[in-house]
């Protein structure tokens, strides 16, 4: 299992807390901008595992011995797009960035499902989501399976910004976009602006390996880009390493600025950071979840 029971307990009871309100397609548990009485009863539906017990109709349960959920007409679901970077660069480091990204995607998807949101997982690149919309806790097994098996299709191997632009052009439902990537693409800030321009709220979780943040190289080296295959010859010494760190800091600074300007959220997670820290520090303390 990609998450252990202790981490599940940590995530239980949390709900994603986007800054924007989005219109939903089915009745859900989120307030919309449509006017109405938020507590007005609309209909019943069958209870499914993981549903919020607060909306269980206890009277019906007592009389008919059947659990049914009460839904309200002015509460709609939230579309949560889980965009997971599956490019070759995510395999770098020990542990790899891909493992950390999968765990974070799974955790966010679990919180969204438990909160009654619609989860649309997608590997960066393909025009269509890999799996259909997932709802409720019953959808978590499929989400977990997806996160463990997701791989980019060979025909869709393209750079990160191109993948984002493909996603933007796909005319997907507006909602919360949780982008989990290393962001190592010089065009990435522009791609993020494009993404936010479609009305999505952007949450960008940047995953980097410790050795990327503080490389330990020395000597004359020929560096080959893991994705494009481009080669760079450097003499790794303190000057070059200092310049590398400077460039990385500048790149990350541009990413942070872009996300801030589009009203999104940003966090940098190291590949070897425990998930506990991400949940407690980022999700809870910074108000990503409620």
């Amino acid at each position, binding site marked *: 299992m990609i998450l252990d029971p202790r981490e599940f307990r940590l995530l239980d009871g949390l709900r994603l807390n986007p800054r924007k309100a989005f219109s939903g397609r089915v009745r859900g548990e989120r307030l919309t901008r449509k006017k109405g009485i938020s507590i007005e009863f609309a209909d019943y539906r069958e209870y499914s595992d993981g549903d919020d017990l607060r909306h269980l109709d206890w009277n019906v349960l007592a009389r008919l011995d059947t659990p049914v959920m009460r839904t309200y007409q002015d509460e709609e679901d939230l579309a949560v797009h889980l965009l997971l970077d599956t490019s070759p*660069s995510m395999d*770098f480091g020990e542990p790899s960035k891909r493992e950390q990204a999968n765990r974070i995607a799974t955790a966010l998807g679990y919180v969204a499902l438990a909160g009654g949101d619609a989860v649309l997982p997608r590997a960066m690149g393909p025009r269509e989501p890999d799996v259909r919309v997932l709802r409720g806790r019953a959808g978590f097994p499929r989400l977990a399976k997806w996160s463990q098996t997701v791989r980019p299709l060979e025909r869709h191997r393209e750079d990160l910004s191109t993948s984002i632009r493909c996603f933007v052009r796909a005319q997907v439902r507006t909602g919360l976009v949780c982008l989990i990537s*290393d962001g*190592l*693409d*010089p065009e990435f800030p522009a791609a993020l602006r494009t993404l936010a321009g479609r009305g999505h709220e952007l949450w960008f979780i940047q995953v980097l*390996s410790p050795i*990327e943040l503080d490389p*330990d*190289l*020395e*000597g*004359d*080296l*020929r*560096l*080959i*880009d*893991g*994705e*494009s295959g*481009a*080669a*760079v*010859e*450097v*003499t*790794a*010494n*303190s*000057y*070059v390493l200092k*310049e*590398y760190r400077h*460039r*990385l800091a500048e*790149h990350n600074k541009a990413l942070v600025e872009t996300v801030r300007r589009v009203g999104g959220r940003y966090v940098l997670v190291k590949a070897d950071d425990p998930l506990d820290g991400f949940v407690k520090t980022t999700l809870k303390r910074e108000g990503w979840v409620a």
Partner: protein
Amino acid sequence: MRVPATFLWPNRVDEVRANALFQRLRPSWLLFLQLLALLLTVCAFAKPQTRQQGLAGEATVIVIDASASMSAVDVRPSRFEEARKLARETIQSAHPTDRIALIEAGPSPRVVFPLGNDPARQLFALDQLKPTDAEADTGEALRLASALVGSIDGARIVLLSDGDFDPVQNFSRGKAALVFRRIGDMDDNVSISALGLADSATGRQLYAGLRNQSSKPMEATLTLYADGKPLDSIRSGAIAPHGQFGHTVQAPSGAKVFEAKIDAPDLLKSDNYAVCLADSGASLRVLLVSHGNPFLERALALDPRVTLDRATEVPAEERGSGGGKYDLVVFDGIDEIPVKARGVLTFGNAGDSSPVTDAGQASAGTFVSAEPKALMKGVDFRGVYIEKQHRVTPKGTGEVMAQTSTGPLVVASQTPDRRQIYVAFDPLQSDFPLQVGFPIFVANALDFLGGSQSSDTLAVRAGVPFMVPSTQPGTLISPDGTKIDLKPTGSTIVIREAKKVGTYKLQIGSKTKTIFAYLRSERESNITPNAEVTLGGGQVKATISPLRFADFWRPLALLGLLVLAGEWWLFARKS
């Protein structure tokens, strides 16, 4: 090398920066390791040395004193075993590249293991060493050691001894260092310093003398034996330090072997026994009158009966007639004069008392004949080159034993009071001393002049080689029952194996000779360990634990190699 993205890396190599003539040194682990490896390599090439304690050097000769005094038991179990133990520890603690040789400093020094680094075989050779009850030729052993390592830089000669030996002359250690490790710390010893027979008005007297060699009073019980039977026993009482005690008893007529034993709480047992023989031919005091003839000296000394003195002229008290100090006088190229001795052997210049009349020198002729007498047994003059021969004529009882075409070569004379042999050439003007027959002729001459045939009983000093005329192989049975097979050389058997005090049996054919080996040596009985010895004219002090310089470049070179390997590993890992 693959990286997630290359756009963050500056496309720059060092050559760009190498344009600057002076740059600030950039810290680099690889550079540090390379410099460290270089430093270690340079240090290794400088061949640094460390001071270590230990007897062994890079090339070491261990000389183990195997003389009688090393059998003293003040160091348990004995001084010799202590020396063996030190040698064993030295071999075991030697470095793998150290070469060690072993020399036994016995009566005849020998190399028991040549210079090498095979500890197993060295220890085996060391275990084969045995102490002797003889005087050691330590000087010769040291000269042998110097010949082995004297030309090697940093070599070392280690002498494990109690220092009880005569000053060594004609010794040079060359480039080798000399380390003397003293063994022993006490001097308690009482020895038999004299045992002899003397005729007196009351008959034959047996005299025994004891000497207290120690620095404190000691006492001993002296027991005398005649032909194995107790004759007398007496307690000496306290003998003063370095004092003597003498005892005389009437010797029974007819007894041939007289022995003396002492029982004393001393540290050396081998000098607590002595023997003397009553047979007149059993011991001969010989005076060699010569300007120097090592061949003749060696041939005379080989006879166990001979006690040899040397002189360039006859002492005044030995001239004339009557009873003298010497049994025999040998004139070697010196004019013969009348002497008191009962036997005279003359080479070359005859005198009035000679059994020949000398008519001057002439070229030697060819060998003609020799008489089949005991004197000429085993002696062949046919191949002998003689440069000049005295033309002589026998007179009186003179009898020609050998003759060349020039005239008589060997003339013997025998009267009730005196026996004489005249040889008509100087041995050093011929190659006779180099012939096998020379020592045989000397032995035959001693038999003739001593007035007896080879005795069945011999008394010899332990460790001193002696010869017995024989053409058959023999067997020597040691006091402990060990049998040693002996083969004759020419017509004699040379016996070197009687190195321990005691009674030996020599079996040749059906005949058996009894040989009494004894230690009567003032030098060996004085077991006081010496802290200083005189070697080659200089004093050498005893050293407890000498220091040595040991090469230290190998660990440095190995460390440099390891650093270089680490630098390579780091480079490979970072690349």
